[in-house]
């Protein structure tokens, strides 16, 4: 195939302990480290491996969000993507709108495979890949832990509650990456220098002529209810006593 499209979402870094703003309007993002959503990094790694095996010729990374998302796209280029597209939009854009943006880029570029992370670790929605497959009317292979391309089909092993499910899909298709699909490569300094010369195009959301979906409104953020402070026991017999006291054994 020719082109693979990969989504890179700018999200609060995996290691940040997120705090809710005191006025409940959202979570604190000022001065907080931002990174590529970890599942998207896995998606990009898989796309790069497919290209490196000679099964595709170009990997395009796409981010939908504020201008700052250029940083994540540059990281993606340093990992090995050939070029990048930023569609400037509000960070809180709903998943169906994101899916429609992906679809617009798929049509423009003639993409045959889209690889996305299965979910973003900020909104934890787990929707965009499935929605893209729907608006594109193409197969979806979500939560992938193994991908094999064979001509015009892909064989994908999926992590499901019951175990590992394997399905076969015709291309074009959407694949979403789960944790154990691969270990993303580390970026080396010379790659960062090279990435600065790779093309990064910026588009405005309005340029794509996308119809806005009925939005879900986020009205209030609150910290989760804290669990009551527990007790420490000194040894196993203390543990057994505590469990008996609670009527659990």
């Amino acid at each position: 195939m020719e082109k693979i499209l990969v989504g890179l979402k700018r999200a609060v870094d995996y290691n940040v302990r997120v705090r809710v703003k005191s006025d409940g309007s959202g979570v604190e993002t000022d001065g907080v480290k931002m990174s590529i959503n970890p599942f998207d990094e896995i998606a990009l790694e898989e796309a790069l491996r497919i290209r490196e095996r000679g099964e595709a010729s170009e990997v395009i990374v796409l981010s939908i969000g504020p201008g700052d998302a250029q940083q994540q796209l540059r990281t993606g280029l340093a990992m090995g993507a050939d070029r990048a597209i930023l569609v400037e939009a509000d960070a809180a854009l709903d998943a169906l709108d994101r899916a429609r943006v992906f679809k617009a880029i798929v049509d423009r570029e003639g993409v045959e495979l889209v690889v996305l992370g299965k979910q973003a670790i900020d909104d934890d929605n787990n929707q965009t890949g499935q929605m893209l497959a729907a608006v594109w009317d193409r197969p979806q292979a979500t939560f992938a832990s193994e991908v094999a391309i064979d001509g015009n089909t892909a064989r994908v092993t999926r992590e499901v509650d019951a175990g590992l499910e394997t399905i076969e899909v015709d291309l074009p298709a959407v694949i979403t990456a789960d944790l154990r699909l691969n270990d993303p490569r580390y970026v080396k300094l010379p790659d960062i220098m090279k990435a600065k010369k790779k093309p990064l195009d910026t588009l405005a959301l309005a340029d794509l002529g996308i119809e806005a979906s009925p939005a879900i409104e986020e009205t209030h953020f609150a910290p989760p209810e804290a669990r009551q402070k527990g007790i420490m026991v000194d040894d196993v017999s203390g543990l057994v006593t505590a469990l008996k006291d609670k009527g659990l054994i």
Partner: protein
Amino acid sequence: MANVLLIAEHDGTNLNPSTAKSVACAANIEGAEVHVLVLAADAAGVAAEASRLDSVAKVLTVSNPANENALAAVLAPQIVALADGYDYVFGPSTTFGKDLMPRVAAMLGVNQISDIMSVEGSHTFKRPVYAGNAIVTVNAPEGHTVVATVRTASYRAVGSDNAAPVEAVDPGVELPTHTRFVELQTGQSDRPDLQTAARVVSGGRALGSSESFDIIYALADKLAAGVGASRAAVDAGYVPNDMQVGQTGKIIAPDLYLAIGISGAIQHLTGIKDAGTIVAINKDEEAPIFEVADIGLVADLFDAVPELTEALD
């Protein structure tokens, strides 16, 4: 009146417990009339089970060999065709529902609310974000179908003293053939199912090997418990993926949860926050798991776990 179409999860023979929990959520919508939709190769057995669930007004069935395996691309167009006239379309937030429901939502032209943990009003819901570090209240747009998944750990299954009518329906749509089931490899186990077990014992990276997990299994068997694991233990290959508990694994709510050699990363804690009692055994007294544990024991797990197993005789 608020009509809810709830998509049943099943394995072709038995209804998955996620369905009864999702019914409990749907029943919280004021004036809800809940219809359960069973899409299967032969829906009769599963439909009979669904018709016994309390709060269910009707069970709809579609029996079609194409529905033998739950492929989202095959199921979604049937659901969309049958969703006409419903105000809500719900599914469980299991891998089944997570795969399927966004496809349904997009085909209906609406966004989806993932992981409902409480119903606050006809269009207002609470859901977790940032691995459960924040709970957001969301409003779905009025005048559109509400498509959502239910965070099943937030709900107790409804009872099963009902006898709702069962009705076969025909979605009358052409189904795609671009997506084909190949196989399902499932870790056969006689132990209680991780997602529904009243007790769960989980092991972490500190176990150090696949073989060491034997002491976790031995303790679990003594307690008639399900067995889970942290992401680190799964990544290290000690246990299969279907045992992972946490943000991207299974979200569970057992009465008793024992975290053995699990440090307690926030991504793990979000998977157990609804557990009744959390017990932590860890060598590192600074481990974050102790911040959420109801009972904590600082000890070498290789001493403490066999000792505990023996003490339970």
